[in-house]
């Protein structure tokens, strides 16, 4: 089995899609963690590992990279349409 998700840090609430995922595809990490994509997720983009409520911190590399602007369900694509920067709002 080839892993197509990368979890950069155990505290992360997002994983990185190593290949593009279509809605319904199952992404699998090295340790076997599986996430079903609920939307299309482009390669090298983020997918939610857990349900992330609006206003919650997006954690990647074990660090806060952004704040969600709406509820993001597990398996959703996480990008500029559903998060905002905490610094340099762009």
């Amino acid at each position, binding site marked *: 089995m080839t892993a197509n998700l990368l979890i950069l840090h155990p505290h992360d609430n997002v994983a990185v899609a190593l290949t593009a995922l279509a809605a319904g595809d199952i992404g699998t990490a090295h340790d076997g963690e599986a996430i079903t994509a609920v939307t299309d997720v482009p390669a*090298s*983009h*983020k997918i939610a590992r857990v349900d992330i409520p609006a206003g919650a911190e997006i954690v990647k590399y074990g660090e806060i990279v952004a704040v969600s602007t709406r509820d993001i369900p597990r398996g959703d694509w996480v990008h*500029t349409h559903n998060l*905002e920067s905490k610094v340099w709002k762009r």
Partner: protein
Amino acid sequence: MTQLTGYLRPDGKVGIRNHVLVLATVSCVTGVIQRIARDVPEAVCVPHAYGCGRGGPRDLEILFRVLPGMVRHPNVGAVVLVGLGCEVSSTKMLMSLIGDAGKPVEVFNVQEDGGSLATAQQGAEAARRLLAQVASHPRVPVQWSDLLVGMECGGSDAMSGVTANAAMGSVADWLVGQGGSVIFGENTETIGTAHVLARRAGNEAVAQQIVAMVDRAERLTHEIMGDLASLVISPGNMDGGMSTIAEKALGSICKGGTTAITQVVDYAETPTEKGLILQDGPGYDGDSMTGLAVSGAQLMFFSTGRGTPAGFPGVPVIKVASNSRLFHAMRDDMDVNAGVMIEGTSRDTLRDEMLARMARVVNGEPTQAERNGMDVFTFMTVHPPF
């Protein structure tokens, strides 16, 4: 693991190469250095665009740190210094700053030694003489703790921060665990991460230095770029999945690993601490590599996603491709393929391969940039030329 070997220098530093460096003091003698390079290809010949015509205090400080630093570098066993005669960083000035280099330094000046052709001939003869002399230096057993390894990234793509830099971070953590040191910089790539880096500081003073460094980088970027400052995260970055400036910066700083930052040093300044060192230097690859090398890095890892061949004179640079497409498209320029992480290889497996490669390079195996002679030598300036 493999026993490492290197060259023990009189100042106690350890080199992993034993080069004869032929260094220009000023841009005017570029052609002389190029002639010597053609005559003596085994020497590391370094012409450059600096040495005069810039009088600002910060530029002088950097000039008088970088050129002596190249002479003192532990990978250099002997030096031919070629000057003009009337430049700011004259051979006399540089030798007075260097003091006892702990290695043979032969000095020539075009204005005193018969013009460019005669100087090139004498410089080439000196380089050959010194090559024969350094050949007798033995390789002796050295330790991982003798190493300062630079971590650089350039020509990045969306995978750089996910594969290559992450793997380099694992190498950095391992090396620091062995008592070795790692240095990384590129202050423009730290914007938005002051809180992250400061939390990782070894003590409160270092934390304050980190915050000041990131603030300065943010302020300077705004001052110079104005409304375009936000383009430090480009549309291409966003297409690649980076949503915020902090996310982009984290992808860059992860190449330093996760250990405590023990010291912040100025551009091209030599650290006095061991462990993970942060350098307040620019992101531009050539300038950044010079800062890391002059700080004493004997070896560098350099991640790239779009692909750059750049190496550094006298210092092995291990190129890490962030994706397999690049690794194969520029096969002659790349040393490590971190793209295998996309195809299912774990970060730990890749790290172990990189450690094995690093050991072989320390012990003398040339990197692709070394084989190909892809040296780049530029350094930071902040004032306009006069």
